């Protein structure tokens, strides 16, 4: 099984007609930027038309001005499709993808906890990563997050002396 | 008998006796190249502080220390030398790798045992 040479940008663009164009970013990886509102449609097409049945990861990047979500998928063809979505920094919202890709529920919970991105339709966005007494609506992985010395961030108090 | 393999293995272990190394009476042979306790060769150090810069846990402090040391045939007066907080050192060996001297001014010995009561021990 050599790297899937057949996995070209235009095959992906064909499948993503009207949503975005595929650009080849690595030997076996094609990235498509799609509008946030239509991410579920893009994911559904990736799963059905491009036969990607395995969600590798939902990567999140805080570029300082926007949040980027990268949905990486692969399938038996061993090629990788990355659906890229940009979200505004003030109230970042997006539809939850757990309906199409069940494991997404898990990854979305982590992203919500650390970045504060809202996933509409997610059944259970309770606290996931951070400890119970971590102050509300503080998202540590954001670039602009700074530890406020006044607040306690839970966990054992700093070892004295 | 279905359980034959298990029985054979039981008897083999019984016959071979315990595999335990009864430390400290017996010692595990330490292979060459083992990254053990850190040590400093004061006379070889030229005070370039590369080790302090590269250390991931920043446990190496450069302290003032004047000394004449040979560098490429000439002798210079170095200004500072490294001091290592032993129990912050994770024995990764990066300091030894980036140290430009030969023989190395800062290196990991093969000293295996590293426990100690005083957390603030400093290796000079």
């Amino acid at each position, binding site marked *: 099984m050599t790297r899937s040479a057949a996995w070209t940008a235009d095959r992906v663009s064909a499948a993503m007609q009207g949503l975005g164009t595929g650009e080849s970013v690595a030997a076996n990886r094609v990235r498509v930027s799609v509008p946030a509102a239509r991410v579920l449609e893009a994911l559904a097409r990736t799963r059905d038309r491009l036969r990607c049945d395995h969600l590798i990861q939902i990567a999140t990047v805080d570029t300082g001005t926007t949040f980027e979500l990268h949905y990486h998928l692969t399938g038996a063809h061993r090629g990788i499709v990355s659906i890229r979505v940009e979200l505004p920094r003030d109230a970042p919202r997006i539809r939850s993808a757990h309906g199409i890709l069940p494991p997404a529920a898990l990854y979305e919970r982590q992203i919500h906890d650390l970045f504060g991105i809202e996933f509409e339709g997610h059944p259970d966005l309770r606290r996931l990563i951070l400890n119970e007494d971590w102050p509300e609506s503080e998202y540590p992985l954001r670039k602009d997050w700074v530890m406020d010395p006044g607040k306690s961030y839970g966990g054992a108090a700093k070892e004295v002396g | 008998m279905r*359980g034959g393999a*298990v*029985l054979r293995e*039981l008897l083999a*272990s*019984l016959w*071979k*006796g*315990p*595999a*335990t190394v*009864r430390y400290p009476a017996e010692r595990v042979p330490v292979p060459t190249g083992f990254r053990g306790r850190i040590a400093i060769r004061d006379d070889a150090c030229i005070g370039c502080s590369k080790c302090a810069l590269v250390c991931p846990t920043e446990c190496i402090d450069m302290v003032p220390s004047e000394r004449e040391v040979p560098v490429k045939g000439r002798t210079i007066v170095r200004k500072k030398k490294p001091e290592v907080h032993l129990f912050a050192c994770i024995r990764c060996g990066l300091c030894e790798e980036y140290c430009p001297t030969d023989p190395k001014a800062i290196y990991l010995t093969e000293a295996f045992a590293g426990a100690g009561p005083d957390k603030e021990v400093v290796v000079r």
Partner: protein
Amino acid sequence: MDPLGIVAYGLLFPGLVFLIGYALFFEFVDRKLAARFQSRVGPPLLQPFADLVKLLSKEDVDTEGSDATAIRAILILAFAAVATAFLYVPVLGPSPLAFQGDLVVVLYLFTLPTILLFLLGWLSRNVFGTIGGTRALTQLFIYEVPLFLVLLGPAIAAQSWSLSGIAEAQRASGWAVVAQPIGFLVALIGLQAKLERAPFDLPEADTELVAGPWTELTGRKLAMMRLTMDLALVVGSGLVAALFLGGPSVPWVVEPAWLAAAAGFAAFLGKTLGILVVLATIRSAMGRIRMDQLDAFGWTVLTGAGILQIGLVLVLGGGGGG
């Protein structure tokens, strides 16, 4: 035997003191053998004794809201039951306290600790204890039938209900294990299940239930219960040795009485240790089975074998023996 002798017999030699010492030695052999099977060094000889002493000195915590006096009573009762059962197990020769029907008494006393263990778990008000306790009870029902069935085999063959009597009868008719090999195997498996040793250690399955009924036991209570279980191991192997391996008897006749008793005692030690080695090997060679699997195995394989063995004894034995 004059009353003083009985008391000495009961309390000192083959009685309590010897029993506790021998039980601790049993635990040592068991743990050492299991360790060496696993390429480990294993404990020193006096480790079980040291554990006992250490536990006795530890703080004895009563869980809040649990009926402390009831739990203490249970522990003492369990210990006493097993210790008394040992009185009827022939050690030097026929036990002086033997009487027709002591086999039934021994079996009854031998079952008591398991039921008490269930109560212990139930009273400890700990969720692990409750589940562990119910498991102990369910397990009891499963192996009890085949175990008792099989233990009655030699009794029928020897036409006697006294443990010592059965042992003596085998002096003439040869060891019951020869005539009833299936019975011997089922007895060993049943014993392993009764003592809740792997693969039947479901009640105190440490991977799910922390320690089952034992979870809330600390200090003196834990020491008492562990000792009781060690005693049960000795009593159990003594029981099986007496029933199937002829108890403290040596095949050839030994003239002077005291030498006969000594030979008998040596035979008792040898046989019980032999049984212990088998039990320890089973313990090391197996993982733990699940309750439903124990159910299936217990009712089909064990009980089936038990009934078969009893059938054979009734048909072949035909009341012969003696």
